[in-house]
């Protein structure tokens, strides 16, 4: 069928089942926006207030829906604004499709108004990118882009479309299949390797499973649970793996890493065999991979061969999709018991005790733990970056089917609100709870308008310590308390700010207001904000 290329782009999105996009217009992407208007009943554009937030929202949507999602920006500044979101998605292997407008083909390379070489600039952070030169390639390119973003190790794909290309007329038909000779991710594990893994697990005295974000990417939570149960193997997670495993499972020992919990880090120290699943052993998760590999048999399951052996020496590599590989493994393993080992790990569990907070503040970890007890089980928790992230990661007790989202690899401040918006739109039945600091909130609070405009119900929690808390702590510990540029004086009254947007808001600064706020947060699903006053010197751990 003959149609404009911009209309064809919309048809491609429809064919991919996209119902929401996060875009910010400008001259070079206008033909595409115009075509979107014709299909506004099928595809809704959410006008975020900054392009990066559009990318983060698409990321939140993708993480909950399990499908690549779309963000859109114009050429030049719009495209460049998207880079933070693209890099954030890349670091956490989240499938997003970034569509950018570009100056017209004959202007490319002339430093035209709002021209930026976005495919060049984003190259280090994309799984793949396209600069569309021939409008006739659009159906194939879109098909490939979605396929590449969502398969193998997921990641962002960028499609840069010059404005004249968008206006061209093409003969549209959406390809049914993709064939890229040079892209064939390994899905099933090598059978011999699977047997080797089974053997190593069988002979292990102190086995441990460490799971990462890859378990979500391959929808393998059930398989991990089964393996852990059948073989009686304790489980720990990386930050990206939080909520892959049931928090109150007797075999769960928490998050590993610099900011992890004692039980998880001690388990990693004491185990004799470590099975890594979809975890890349980032430096925040394992500080001294060399030492760990020396004393431990390392088994590494990952769909990306390049991750195996990159950060930690591996005894048994196993390339494949975690879900498929674990299923293969489940067919060959036998039930085991590791009573002594599990008991040993039990001794590392620390009972949480909260110090009395300073007058006019509450203990942030106590607040988060109590909040988690009250929130609906299926709540999607989105944490920002900083102390608030670690408080959320270690003190929020997730219930079965709960979900935890954060920017793990890039640690991008300002991720949480847009991500929570996308997550909410992907699954409106679930409560979307966002936790951030007063620093990071000021990098994203413009999105409150978007929430109001489109009725996106996010429960916003701002942990106010009037500091860039995590950096403040670093300066206290690592720079002899020489504090510089961590004071957030000049911040607005966040309760009043929310109210200015018409968003109901509460402040927590004592036991009583804490109770009230928790009740509100756990209650009716609505857009609201809670400011939690926290001691400026409160520690992360």
């Amino acid at each position, binding site marked *: 069928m003959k149609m404009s290329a911009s209309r064809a782009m919309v048809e491609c999105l429809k064919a991919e089942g996209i119902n929401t996009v996060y875009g910010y217009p400008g001259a070079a992407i206008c033909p595409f926006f115009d075509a979107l208007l014709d299909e506004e009943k099928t595809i809704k554009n959410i006008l975020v207030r900054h392009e990066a937030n559009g990318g983060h929202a698409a990321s939140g949507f993708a993480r909950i829906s399990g499908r690549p999602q779309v963000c859109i920006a114009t050429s030049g500044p719009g495209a460049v604004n998207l880079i933070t979101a693209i890099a954030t998605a890349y670091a956490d292997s989240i499938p997003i499709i970034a569509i950018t407008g570009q100056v017209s083909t004959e202007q490319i390379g002339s430093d035209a108004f709002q021209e930026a070489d976005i495919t060049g600039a984003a*190259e*280090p952070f994309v*799984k*793949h990118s396209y600069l569309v030169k021939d409008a006739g390639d659009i159906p194939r390119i879109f098909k490939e882009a979605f396929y*590449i973003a969502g398969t193998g190790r997921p990641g962002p794909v960028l499609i840069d479309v010059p404005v004249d290309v968008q206006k061209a007329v093409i003969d549209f038909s959406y390809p049914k299949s993709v064939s890229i000779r*040079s892209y064939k991710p390994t899905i099933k594990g090598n059978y011999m390797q699977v047997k080797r893994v089974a053997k190593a697990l069988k002979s292990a005295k102190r086995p441990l499973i460490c799971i990462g974000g890859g378990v979500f990417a391959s929808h393998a939570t059930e398989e991990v649970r089964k393996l852990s149960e059948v073989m009686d193997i304790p489980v720990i997670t990386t930050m990206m793996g939080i909520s892959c495993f049931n928090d109150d499972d007797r075999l769960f020992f928490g998050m590993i890493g610099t900011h992890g919990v004692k039980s998880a880090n001690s388990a990693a120290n004491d185990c004799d065999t470590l099975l890594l699943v979809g975890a890349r052993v980032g430096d925040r998760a394992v500080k001294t991979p060399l030492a760990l590999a020396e004393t431990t048999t390392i088994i590494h399951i990952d769909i990306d*061969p*390049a991750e195996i*052996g*990159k950060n930690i020496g591996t005894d048994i590599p196993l390339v494949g999709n975690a879900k498929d590989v674990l299923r293969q493994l489940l067919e060959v393993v036998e039930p085991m018991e590791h009573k002594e080992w599990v008991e040993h790990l039990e001794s590392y569990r620390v009972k949480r005790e909260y110090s009395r907070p300073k007058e006019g503040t509450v203990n942030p970890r106590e607040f988060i733990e109590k909040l988690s007890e009250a929130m609906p089980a299926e709540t999607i928790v989105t944490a920002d970056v900083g102390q608030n992230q670690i408080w959320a990661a270690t003190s929020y007790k997730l219930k079965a089917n709960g979900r935890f989202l954060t920017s793990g690899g890039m640690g991008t401040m300002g991720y949480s609100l847009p991500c929570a918006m996308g997550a909410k739109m992907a699954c409106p039945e679930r409560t979307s709870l966002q936790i951030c600091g007063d620093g990071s909130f000021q990098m994203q609070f413009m999105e409150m308008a978007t929430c109001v405009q489109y009725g996106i119900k996010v429960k916003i929690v701002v942990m106010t310590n009037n500091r860039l808390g995590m950096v403040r702590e670093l300066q206290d510990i690592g720079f002899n308390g020489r504090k510089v540029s961590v004071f957030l004086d000049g911040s607005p009254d966040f309760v009043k700010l929310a109210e200015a947007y018409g968003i109901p808001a509460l402040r927590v600064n004592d036991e009583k207001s804490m109770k009230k706020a928790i009740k509100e947060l756990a209650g009716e699903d609505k857009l609201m904000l809670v400011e939690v006053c926290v001691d400026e010197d409160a520690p992360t751990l």
Partner: protein
Amino acid sequence: MKHTISVLVENHSGVLSRISGLFSRRGFNIESLAVGPTENPEVSRITIIADGDDHTVEQIEKQLNKLIEVIKVKSFKPSECMARELMLLKVSATADKRQEIMTICEITESKVIDMTVNTMTLEICDKYDHLIKFVALLEPYGIIEMVRTGTIAIQRGSDTIAAGK
């Protein structure tokens, strides 16, 4: 240690920048890089000489393989492939030195391709080590300008890395 890495890629614009970007971004050192078409017009072949230990080379191979437009990557030990590089070299040569330089050319199987009153331009196509020796032999005369293509390599025997098959 030096490794020879052959990479077959889709003959698209932008591929070379993706590859060179990958090397600099990941801190891999490239000694030389040569690119050209293959027997299949859709496929280009890049030959990279890279420095690094086995772990580094393994990472290079794996990271290259992740680029969507990379069709095949293979690294060779020196004994597994034949490698050649073309060099053009302009050297000062006044009349009294010409004969000596011609002798060097004869022994090294290089050619004189241009000559002026006080310069000679030479061409040699050989292995990396031989080029180094050739340069050393000519240094005393004064090398004015040197240009090299970078090494290309092909497997010994009947094995190939088969473009597009």
